[in-house]
């Protein structure tokens, strides 16, 4: 997992390097993001373009991040595949997370809102 902060928007882009976010990886993902939030990075853009598989544990970790940022910041999702989007849709989480096709598209949208 790597992260970079966009100086203009103040958005921290977190790019996952793994291809799977399942029960075996969820806790590690959650604690890495919690560490970023503890350091004050509260506008997060999760770039999931390398992710080929996510299960409900991975989704639960994302929900946990969403809850960590309640009243403190935002989390946006980008680069999600059709497969993974179907999991968000089945669970109704597509209505919770703002989802964009790519990190660039998400950043452009966030910048327009500023």
């Amino acid at each position, binding site marked *: 997992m790597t992260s970079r902060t966009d100086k203009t928007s103040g958005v921290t882009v977190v790019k996952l390097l793994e291809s*799977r976010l*399942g*029960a*075996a990886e969820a806790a590690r993902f959650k604690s890495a993001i919690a560490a970023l939030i503890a350091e004050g990075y509260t506008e997060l853009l999760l770039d999931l373009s390398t992710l080929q*598989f996510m*299960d*409900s*544990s991975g*989704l*639960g*970790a994302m*929900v*946990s991040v*969403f*809850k960590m940022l309640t009243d403190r910041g935002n989390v946006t999702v980008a680069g999600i595949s*059709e*497969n993974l989007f*179907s*999991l968000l849709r*089945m*669970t*109704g*989480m597509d*209505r*919770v997370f703002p989802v964009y096709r790519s990190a660039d598209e998400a950043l452009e949208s966030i910048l327009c809102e500023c």
Partner: protein
Amino acid sequence: MSTNLHMLISIGSRLDQVWAAGVSVHAVALRLGFRELEAYQIELATVEVVNNAIQHARRGPGQSVDIVLAASEGMLSIDVSDDGQPAPTDWLNRCVRKSGDVSSQVEADLFESGRGLAVLNQIMEQVTYHRAAQRNHVRMLRRIPEPAGLFPDA
């Protein structure tokens, strides 16, 4: 052409081995004629049941979770078995209930776990649980799309 397949995948009762079962199921589903999205969802359903088995299984060396894939007469069946604690008798009913209301109350109920089994009934046509020979068995059925077959061009 009718497709007949019987395949056993056995993994250690460890979360870090689940991916191997998942990618195997995905590959078989594609070869049977399911589309990529459907193959992902079948992999997802299997992984959710396997995760659940591991998280409730007896710990210790030598424990395993078995996944039996069978395809015949246009139906794919996936049987996941383990020797963990028996599931509560209303386990499947709770899954069905959760799958029915999971998307309507999401914003009010941002739970971090419990969605896995709830999506099963959205993906598979039938999900049943039974216990036999001191093992838990979750059996999932999904109709194979036409044309189907291991060798669709044959």
